[in-house]
């Protein structure tokens, strides 16, 4: 018997003796129930989606509420009144411009440098036969399995000795390459066809030209995905900048906002406006390249 997700229960049209009528009756019934199920599904998932967005929606609305509205109980989602005061104030109360620049420089340069170094390493691992490849591969996998938190203390100690704590280079340098990025790109490069580069090699192209002129252009979606990964990971990171900076001025947005939240009596309007501004670039970046990002996760769903 044919059973679908929306199996009709009662006997709808009395099924005739012929097989054809039975089939058509069966087919017609599910169409209605199936449509109802589709709507149910649509409503449920839109409700789930809205619920998932609740903290973000709450943040956005609160950022535009005047303080008197924020502290009045019972709380409401919709602002009773709109104001831009928090957005004006946030630049004065928190060294917000400073934090913004720090975060852009930190996340931006880590992303670009790491994409370069990760892809170079991945090219060697995926395309160049050499002795010791297995050893390097094992090292990368091992580093993938070890939590980075274990390096925090010695790393802080080392960079402190070099006078690099509370500086951007100190934040950036240890992140200039990344085991996950290398692994991710190696997998991707292995999946690319070899014909083009073999032809180029025949023509005497250097390995650098093959890497830069053939492999990288072919890997645009993977590079974009990894780029967004790196960018959002570093833009969003809390623990590393928190450890590396002792004051709000030298940290990045997440750490700066967390420190501000810890130091002051909670001023939610200000914090929500700051949060909104701090999250905007990542959200925009994501919405822009969403398609290739999700496709990237899908293809490297690490089969």
């Amino acid at each position, binding site marked *: 018997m044919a059973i679908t997700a929306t199996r009709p229960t009662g006997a709808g049209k009395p099924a005739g003796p012929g097989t054809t009528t039975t089939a058509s009756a069966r087919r017609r019934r599910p169409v209605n129930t199936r449509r109802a199920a589709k709507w149910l599904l649509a409503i449920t998932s839109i409700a789930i*989606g809205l619920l998932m967005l609740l903290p973000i929606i709450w943040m956005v609305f609160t950022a535009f509420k005047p303080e008197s509205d924020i502290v009045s109980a019972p709380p409401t989602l919709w602002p009773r009144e709109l104001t831009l005061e928090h957005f004006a104030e946030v630049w004065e109360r928190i060294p917000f411009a400073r934090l913004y620049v720090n975060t852009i420089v930190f996340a931006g340069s880590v992303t670009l440098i790491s994409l370069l170094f990760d892809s170079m390493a991945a090219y060697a691992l995926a395309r160049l036969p050499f002795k010791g490849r297995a050893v390097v591969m094992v090292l990368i996998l091992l*580093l993938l399995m070890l939590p980075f938190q*274990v390096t925090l*203390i010695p790393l802080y100690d080392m960079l402190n000795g070099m006078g690099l704590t509370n500086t951007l280079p100190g934040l950036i*340098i240890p992140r200039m390459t990344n085991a996950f990025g290398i692994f991710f790109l190696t997998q991707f490069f292995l999946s690319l066809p070899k014909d083009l580069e073999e032809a180029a090699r025949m023509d005497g192209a250097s390995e650098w030209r093959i890497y830069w002129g053939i492999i990288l252009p072919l890997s645009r979606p993977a590079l974009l995905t990894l780029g967004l990964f790196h960018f959002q990971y570093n833009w969003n990171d809390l623990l590393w900048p928190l450890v590396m900076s002792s004051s709000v001025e030298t940290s990045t947005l997440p750490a700066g906002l967390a420190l501000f939240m810890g130091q002051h009596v909670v001023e*939610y309007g200000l914090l929500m406006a700051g949060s909104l501004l701090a999250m905007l670039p990542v959200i925009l970046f994501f919405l822009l390249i969403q398609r290739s990002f999700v496709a990237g996760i899908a293809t490297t769903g690490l089969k």
Partner: protein
Amino acid sequence: MTTTAERPAVQLPPPPKRRRPLLRVSGRRSLTAWLFLTPTLLILIAFTVYPMVQALYLSFTDYNLIRAAQWVGLDNYIELLSDDAFWNAFGNTVLYAAVVTPVTVVLALAFALMLNQAFVGRAFARTAIFLPFIVSLGIIAIAWAFLLDPNIGLLSHWLSLVGIVPEQGWLSDPRYAMAAVMAVGVWKNVGFYMVIFLAGLQSIPVDMYEAARLDGAGVWQRFRNVTLPLLSNQTLLVSVLALIATLQAFDQIYVMTRGGPFFRTETLVMLVYREGFQELRFGYASAISFVLVIFVFILSMVQFGYLRRKQVTY
């Protein structure tokens, strides 16, 4: 034409006809490979491998930033065994992982199954569920803390309407604080795992379902005997990723509770942070972080092995 690698092969004199150039070429390629790897290896060794070894060494010392490191043997590890703060953080971490991992994985699969159907609003739902993964947990946790504020928080107001009212507010009530940070942990990552499941679902050939349907398999049977086995790769990946992520929980806890109330939400990473960067006990904190290393490492191996054995290949 052009530079390095291949040119010598062409230029070499013919006499030792084949062998010479071939060897040369592979030797060159090997050198090129190491050149490509140089920046990466230098950085990884200096800023990841070396600090890891250093952490192991520090865990046998009483180093505390002010005083030079003194070798104390296993003292730190012995102290751990009788340290209530450590066992508390250990228990909290296990509890957090034991709840958040399965809940996240099951929810992610359920969302993926739901959003693999075609219907109006699907794109919105997918984006909405995925979006939390993109935003900063440290930042959005501020909004969460606000949502759960006992007086002016919207979510705690809504929950009070259905009769759930923690006496001291969600984040300061010892019975509820952990549940709150757990919920945020699930919320944050479920969309990412959902996308991996969706990719898996889309790679299952439709004829598999047709065949199962012809054999009279119902919805549940098709899920149980077609979908689940064919998703085993994704399930393995997602479970390992989720477990490892939960063992390292920090961001939302730091922002929402700072490990409180009464250390009820202090996880191992929180404890490492407190001992290391607030008490400045670098040696002791390193020892704790090594427990985390072993823990993460063993668990990911165990889970990997277990799921691999259960895996069905077609």
